[in-house]
């Protein structure tokens, strides 16, 4: 955690990054939009991971948010970018509210597998539903902002970039505040030992559920961004390799700093687009090697490059000792 940074400073940072978009070349702009959207969903995974549970099925909420927004956009012609993000977040949050309390009692690898299973069920349902375009999905129109439509593609890209960066920035600031709050510290305590937390009179399941819903809200909003950037949606949103990439970003970032999530997400997008450009048939291979290299050489994530850990308590090794009991 980045203890020193004041929220106002972070707001200034977000504003500066947004304005940077004015001078960035177009290809970086769309890349950064995707990176910001992915950072948002990965931030949700980091939030949830603080309770010791890693979700391998965030694709469920990502697709859930995306499909909801796309259906509403096509049915009622709602194209406003901010409204779409809010709808995506609400849809994701509602799904999380249903699923979270059900799976909060599982831990470790079972939690991961159950979330993965649920997202695959959703994927299966989407592929089979011909009304939603089956495995091909369907298209949506260009997003607008507060009644303005953007004919110039560069302006449209910048608008989306700005909305994505601001939303993700707000989420990042909210997450930082959350991490420092009593609730955030209780979440860390659940990871260390959920039974002791129960003895203190807190409900570990409740803490996990709330973090799960937060992660789902972030994922739903992120799905809305992905939809607006691609103007197309298909069941691939819910596939397990999509979810895997988000976990990848979260691990790449480590749990040292919120800013690391953004850097990690951008790094992944850069690696992806460069290997797409120069090694079109082997970008997965490059991605895999990159992931291995990061895990090997930066065991505490990219964040460890600039955040020095003062406390030795948050060792990941502790979690392995208590996988045994429900």
């Amino acid at each position: 955690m980045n203890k020193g940074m004041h929220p106002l400073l972070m707001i200034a940072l977000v504003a500066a990054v947004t304005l940077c978009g004015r001078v960035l070349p177009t290809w970086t702009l769309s890349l950064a939009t995707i990176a910001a959207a992915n950072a948002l969903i990965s931030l949700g995974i980091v939030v949830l991971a603080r309770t010791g549970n890693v979700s391998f099925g965030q694709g469920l909420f990502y697709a859930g948010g995306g499909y909801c927004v796309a259906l509403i956009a096509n049915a009622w012609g709602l194209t406003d970018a901010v409204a779409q993000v809010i709808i995506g977040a609400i849809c994701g949050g509602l799904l999380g509210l249903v699923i979270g309390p059900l799976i909060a009692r599982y831990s470790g690898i079972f939690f991961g597998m159950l979330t993965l299973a649920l997202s695959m069920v959703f994927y299966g349902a989407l592929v089979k539903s011909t009304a939603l375009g089956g495995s091909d999905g369907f298209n949506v129109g260009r997003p607008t902002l507060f009644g303005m439509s953007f004919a110039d593609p560069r302006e449209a890209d910048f608008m989306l970039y700005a909305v994505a960066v601001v939303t993700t920035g707000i989420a990042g600031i909210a997450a930082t505040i959350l991490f420092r709050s009593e609730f955030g510290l209780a979440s860390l305590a659940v990871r260390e030992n959920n039974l002791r937390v129960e003895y203190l009179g807190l409900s570990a399941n409740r803490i996990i559920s709330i973090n799960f819903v937060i992660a789902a809200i972030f994922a739903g909003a992120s799905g809305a961004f992905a939809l607006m950037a691609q103007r197309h949606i298909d069941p691939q949103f819910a596939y397990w390799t999509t979810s895997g990439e988000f976990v990848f970003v979260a691990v790449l970032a480590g749990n040292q700093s919120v800013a690391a999530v953004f850097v990690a997400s951008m790094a992944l997008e850069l690696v992806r687009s460069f290997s797409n450009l120069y090694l079109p048939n082997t970008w997965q291979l490059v991605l895999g090697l990159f992931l291995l290299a990061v895990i090997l050489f930066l065991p505490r994530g990219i964040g460890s490059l600039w955040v020095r850990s003062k406390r030795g308590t948050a060792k990941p090794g502790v979690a392995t000792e208590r996988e045994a009991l429900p």
Partner: protein
Amino acid sequence: MNFFLTIIVDGLIQASWLFIVALGLTLVFGVLKILNIAHGSLYALGAYVAATAVTMAAARSLPPGVGFVAMLISVALIASAVGLLLERGLLKMFYGRDEVVLLLVTYAVFLVLEDATKLIWGVNPIYATQPYELFGNLEFAGLYYVGYDLVLIPISAAIGFAIWFGLNRTITGKIVLAVIHNEEMSVSMGVRVNRVYAFAFATGALLAAIAGALTAPKISIQPGLSSDVIILSFAIVVIGGLGSVEGAAVGALLVGLARAASVHLMPQAELFVIYLVMAGVLVFRPEGLFKREMARRI
């Protein structure tokens, strides 16, 4: 009545190869405590190597029986070598890390192997159908089955028995079990845990690849195979309880039968059914069917 028999036989055929894959996955988890996502890639590797071996044998106009044996031998050699290489060369470096990190390491291996198979064998589907006719067609309860499919059932049972026997009735197996139960204690009793790890991982890789080889004649081998198989075998080992051999057998049977039943009764639900079974089991047994509860630190 016949209808149910069909479902049962189809389910058994499905379960037979799923069991071999899941057995490898559960063995690796039991010993190394790694849920190996790359297991599906090893299955695909087995299928691809098998196809190459079968095609080469057919090109030299050897009889299909020889091709079948050549396929199994070449797959066994290559898979154990790849398994040893992966464990000694790569996974070894990550021991002691968080289990999620290990999961991601195997995910990275999955990505690498996925592209590596594409580079070697291309993206177009390939076939290795010659051994499929090896055992002719059989009539059973008024229905015709391909003999090869039915032969898979005893083969799978034999492999399951061999693993069970190896684990429970041989010295090596007892040592492996000791490592599964308590690694620290095994180390202090003089067990070379590193060797057990390498051995178990290579065996797991071998099982995945053999399952790939055995199914290769039945399917079209193409990219995406690994990811389908890993999702199925995850469900199986989670149903059975991670690290349990009996669990893998029961899980494979449940999943095989559920799949066969849905194919015959409700084809559109094929994908759900597996996860419904899994969710149903986990509601009542959160750690799977065959997992013993262990003491934990408070």
